[in-house]
């Protein structure tokens, strides 16, 4: 029996078809329109292997889903696979031996050769073993602009951040909200780091987030970033929504001029039937510094007692990185595939811009990979407050930011 299973396992990995039909519960928080469609691609690809994807979607992103994941894993009744932002969030679970080692799958599938940029796989690697399957590349550094809004205001669509700031009064005069920004803290903090890369550049970004250099964080370069953030704060003060996709929807409908949001916003434009370049414009790096961060989602596979399921986990991990799956999934998700060897003809205008930057190697690691969730949430708290309370001065905010960077781990 044991050997038969092993044999089946191998054939499953290689042939992506299997007689063993395990049900795998997959937990994730992809529930918005574009996200759900993307997950469906993963599910159907996995179901095609003869296994069954049991969907365990929990809406409400990390704050709702993560306690469930951690509880289930430490409670000894884990789901078969779970989404995590890859980076440092799952480190301890791996160290505690609660996560399945995927190195065998990775080697069989040659992930090391195909995954690009390789930093994605590095983020999954602890002590030389691979513990997660990256499924996409998301980059934060995008500015989405509504053609309709600028048309209504009678001004051309700007091509960089500075022009955009200058256009703000005209937008306001036309009854538009210049910049849409959801009130959740991760959106505020994200927008700030986008501004940092765009305005202060890659080196400064890395000195602050990777080296935790508090002096730089308190220095003049970051001061400029805070100045820009102050502009953004003024431009976005009338946004009265919390969710990011509600803010995106304001851009889609032309109520707002633009939004600083990651490439996942693309999925929302797509669902609304909008065409890049015609209905909206995307500016990577805010049109200033064409650098994007390469974060993304990854799936972790908790250790399971059931051998059959354990094998199916391998199948799922392999399936997720298959070229076909990657293309289908990422098109719907609005993100970039994690492998460079896939057919990217279907990619649209924005995606292509991203791919070009990626190919040019103008990438930086995401903040999630550089700082701990703890530090990250301190930063989020700061910017959530900054963007929602105009009484906090730029100087005050910067000195608090420098404090957090000094204590970062």
């Amino acid at each position, binding site marked *: 029996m044991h050997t038969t299973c092993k044999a089946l396992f191998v054939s499953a990995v290689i042939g992506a078809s299997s007689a063993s039909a395990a049900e795998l519960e997959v937990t994730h928080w992809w529930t918005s329109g574009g996200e759900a469609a993307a997950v469906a691609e993963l599910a159907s690809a996995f179901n095609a292997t003869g296994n069954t994807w049991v969907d365990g979607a929990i809406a409400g992103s990390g704050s709702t889903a993560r306690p469930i994941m951690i509880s289930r894993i430490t409670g000894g009744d884990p789901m078969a696979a779970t989404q995590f932002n890859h980076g440092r969030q799952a480190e301890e679970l791996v160290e505690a031996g609660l996560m399945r080692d995927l190195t065998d799958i990775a080697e069989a599938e040659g992930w090391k050769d195909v995954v690009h940029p390789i930093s994605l796989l590095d983020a999954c690697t602890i002590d030389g073993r691979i513990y997660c399957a990256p499924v996409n590349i998301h980059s934060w550094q995008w500015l989405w602009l509504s053609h309709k809004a600028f048309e209504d205001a009678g001004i051309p669509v700007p091509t960089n951040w500075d022009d955009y700031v200058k256009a703000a009064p005209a937008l306001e005069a036309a009854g538009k909200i210049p910049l849409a920004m959801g009130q959740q803290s991760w959106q505020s903090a994200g927008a700030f780091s986008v501004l940092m890369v765009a305005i202060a550049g890659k080196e400064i970004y890395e000195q602050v987030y990777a080296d935790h250099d508090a002096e730089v964080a308190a220095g003049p370069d970051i001061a400029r970033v805070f100045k820009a953030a102050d502009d953004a704060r003024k431009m976005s003060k009338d946004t009265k929504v919390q969710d990011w996709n*509600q803010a995106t929807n304001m851009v889609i409908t032309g109520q707002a001029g633009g939004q600083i949001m990651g490439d996942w916003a693309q999925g929302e434009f797509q669902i609304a039937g909008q065409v890049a370049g015609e209905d909206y414009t995307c500016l990577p790096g805010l049109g200033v510094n064409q650098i994007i961060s390469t974060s993304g989602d990854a799936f972790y596979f908790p250790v399971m007692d059931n051998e059959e399921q354990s094998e199916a986990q391998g199948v799922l991990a392999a399936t997720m990185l298959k070229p076909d799956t990657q293309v289908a999934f990422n098109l719907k998700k609005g993100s970039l595939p994690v492998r460079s060897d896939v057919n990217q003809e279907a990619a649209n205008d924005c995606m292509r811009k991203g791919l070009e930057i990626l190919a040019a190697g103008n990438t930086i690691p995401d903040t999630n990979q550089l700082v701990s969730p703890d530090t990250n949430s301190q930063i989020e708290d700061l910017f959530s407050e900054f963007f929602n309370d105009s009484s906090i001065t730029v100087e005050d905010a910067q000195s608090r930011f420098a404090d957090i960077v000094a204590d970062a781990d």
Partner: protein
Amino acid sequence: MSDSTNPMARRDHTHDSVEPDGPRPRHRLSGRNIMIYGTLIMISLYYLLPLYVMVVTSLKGMPEIRLGSIFAPPVDITFEPWVKAWSGACTGLNCDGLSRGFWNSVQILVPSTLLSIAIASVNGYALANWRFRGADVFFTILIIGAFIPYQVMIYPIVILLREMGLYGSLSGLVLVHTVFGMPILTLLFRNYFTSVPVELFKAARVDGAGFWRIYLSIMLPMSLPIFVVAMILQVTGIWNDFLFGVIYTRPENYPMTVQLNNIVNSVQGVKEYNVNMAATLLTGAVPLLVYFVSGKLFVRGIAAGAVKG
């Protein structure tokens, strides 16, 4: 025990005590009456407003919601949102709305309510009538437990359940609900049973009835009101619970509130307020029904259980 606090005498009084004891109004249409009814009607409107908004919104189509005011009655009444909320709304890949969680919720609700009430009533009875050394200490700790935010307990309880081998099972969740319902329910039952004349208890002991016999034959039959209160509190609490349901069970057991959260928090482009409201109303239907049906007993039960301290 003086006569004025003699609960037996009190009971005769409470028998018709759902009738008001306050000062009697003098004339039907006096200024006083106008003020009383006026105030009550104004306040009732404030209380009904959200319900009204929920209902009218759930009956509108999305275009109408976008254009009109939330307080305007629906022009084109549609039940589409209700149908969608019940059986069509998606979260992730599952597009079967709330219906998927309804029976799960019932499955969680019934045993949790029964077990928590059974245990809490026995606790209250033991505390009121069979006081033993240390009982007050345990009771005090229990009451402090009522103040501990659930979030604090999530992690240790995961570990406890894991060690008991109940993590992820329905019984585990039932246990969690029982534990967290225990403080307030025990307080109510203890107060209630304390108000039962102690001589009744003594008489039963002379009659040779033991702990369980007295509980089942004497106390239980005279405690309907407090059981109604406990039931209402538990049905509401357990039915509306999201956190425990989602953390301590597996997806196949997820209660209806998980679907509600998913429907309300997953945004498919635009927030479908009509579907959200319909889903909200559907989820609230069970406790609301329980309230409207047993509201009168609720006050009487509270009068019996909460008033005496």
